[in-house]
């Protein structure tokens, strides 16, 4: 995306890190055409960063896997960093995540390695202004829609500022949990599993495996036994669906999940808890609890 827009670039990417993508709140509304929702894996962290930077909640920011990014501002800009905790410097001064940061023209901004969690979010006052695709600036790692991942040397445009940073000058947010407790709605296919599999789901400890990405987080732990054999015709999937493939090990679908799938979904993680999964490193213990009906 060396220059994807006619607007003046504001953020020069000196070092892009291991995997940095532009993300907003995704492109819902096209699932019937096979287009994934995409969007920030920890949407709450992106919303908070946008609030701190004076943006509407759905403005596009950067989703930075594990931190380790260096940027240069070509004009004065308000930045805000949230999500996985990390050291931040503006110029040569330490700065704090969770605050609006007034960055002068020409200053370098360093996002250090994340000390916990997976994904750091950076919002810029005005929002990252790469051209939208189907109404969203999100990079969809499953379908390839949206801008390609950010690379060293990219010049990222930032849109016009729409509002001042909020009067409240710090937004506390909890660090990533050491152990996840995820509220689960059983269904739509809980009846494809044995009664003991449903008990196992709520009584066992699972762990996030090394196979966790924007599409989903595979877990390891006690296998969930099927009561119904045979193939399930493909059916629509929701964010947070806990799909159980043939090996019985559950997989929680995240932002870039496919629109349909052919393995039974035993339950759905409450949307309020999805950001926790998007921040969970491999090895993180996971426990499921029944969601209170509402």
């Amino acid at each position, binding site marked *: 995306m060396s220059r994807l827009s006619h607007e003046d670039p504001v953020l020069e990417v000196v070092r892009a890190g291991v995997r940095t993508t532009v993300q907003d709140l995704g492109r819902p509304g096209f699932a019937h055409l096979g287009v994934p929702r995409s969007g920030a894996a920890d949407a709450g962290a992106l919303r908070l960063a946008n609030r701190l930077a004076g943006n509407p909640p759905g403005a596009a920011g950067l989703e930075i896997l594990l931190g380790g990014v260096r940027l240069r501002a070509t004009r004065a800009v308000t930045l805000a960093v949230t999500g996985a905790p990390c050291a931040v410097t503006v110029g040569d001064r330490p700065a704090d995540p969770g605050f609006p940061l007034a960055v002068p023209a020409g200053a370098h901004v360093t996002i250090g390695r994340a000390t916990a969690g997976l994904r750091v979010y950076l919002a810029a006052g005005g929002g990252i202004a790469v051209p939208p695709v*189907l109404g969203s600036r999100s990079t969809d790692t499953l*379908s390839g829609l949206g801008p390609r991942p950010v690379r060293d040397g990219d010049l990222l445009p930032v849109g016009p500022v729409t509002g001042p940073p909020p009067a409240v000058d710090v937004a506390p947010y909890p660090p990533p949990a050491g152990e996840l407790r995820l509220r689960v*709605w059983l269904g739509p296919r809980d009846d494809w599993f044995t009664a003991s599999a449903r008990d196992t789901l709520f009584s066992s400890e699972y762990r996030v495996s090394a196979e966790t990405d924007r599409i989903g987080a595979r877990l390891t732990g006690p296998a969930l036994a099927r009561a119904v054999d045979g193939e399930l015709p*493909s*059916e629509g999937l929701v964010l947070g669906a806990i799909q159980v493939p043939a090996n019985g090990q559950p997989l929680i679908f995240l932002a870039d999940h496919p*629109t349909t799938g052919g393995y039974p979904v035993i339950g*759905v993680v409450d*949307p309020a808890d999805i950001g926790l999964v998007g921040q969970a490193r491999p090895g993180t213990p996971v426990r499921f609890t029944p969601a209170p009906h509402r």
Partner: protein
Amino acid sequence: MRARRAGPTAVLLELDDDNAVSAAYDLLTAARTEGTLSAADIVPAARTVLIDGVTDPDRITALLPAGGPSAPSPAAGSSPTIKIPTWYDGEDLDDVARLWGTDRAGVVAIHTGTTFRVAFCGFAPGFAYLTGLDPRHHVPRRPSPRTRVPAGTVALAGPYSGVYPTPSPGGWQCVGRTDARLFDLDSDPPALLTPGATVRFVEAA
């Protein structure tokens, strides 16, 4: 018809057959257009319709006839037929001819002689699952998938025919190719083949 909850803001409607899926999809999208249903996504599939991003999932079934919809609405067949010009030179054409007990020309005659309907989309943006083949002409997937199937490949698997919109791995039996653009971000809608659409394949010169 059975409504299954899929989390706090979604319902998966399970229907008797693909005609009932089509009818439910038509009724629900019409309800959304009329404003009686607010939903972010309505996603038909083989035997289900997912209604996602709704505030009152328990109310969904009240929008449908008691006992469930059974036949597509009259409006359904009224859209113009989308024609897909196809060169029948796929790598699996001879295998499909053998499975169908015919020759290459016979495969072309059967495939171009079938009126297909987009049952649902999935797998990739713009990939449509087309139904309409006679059950005698359903074919298994290839024993091992290809690592790369080119964009525009016309292929068959199970009861479905489809066209790969983008290059991808795939296990379907490849019978031909088209230069039709299946997914175009500058079009509205971006997919050429949308649920409910009528489709015919036409042999390209």
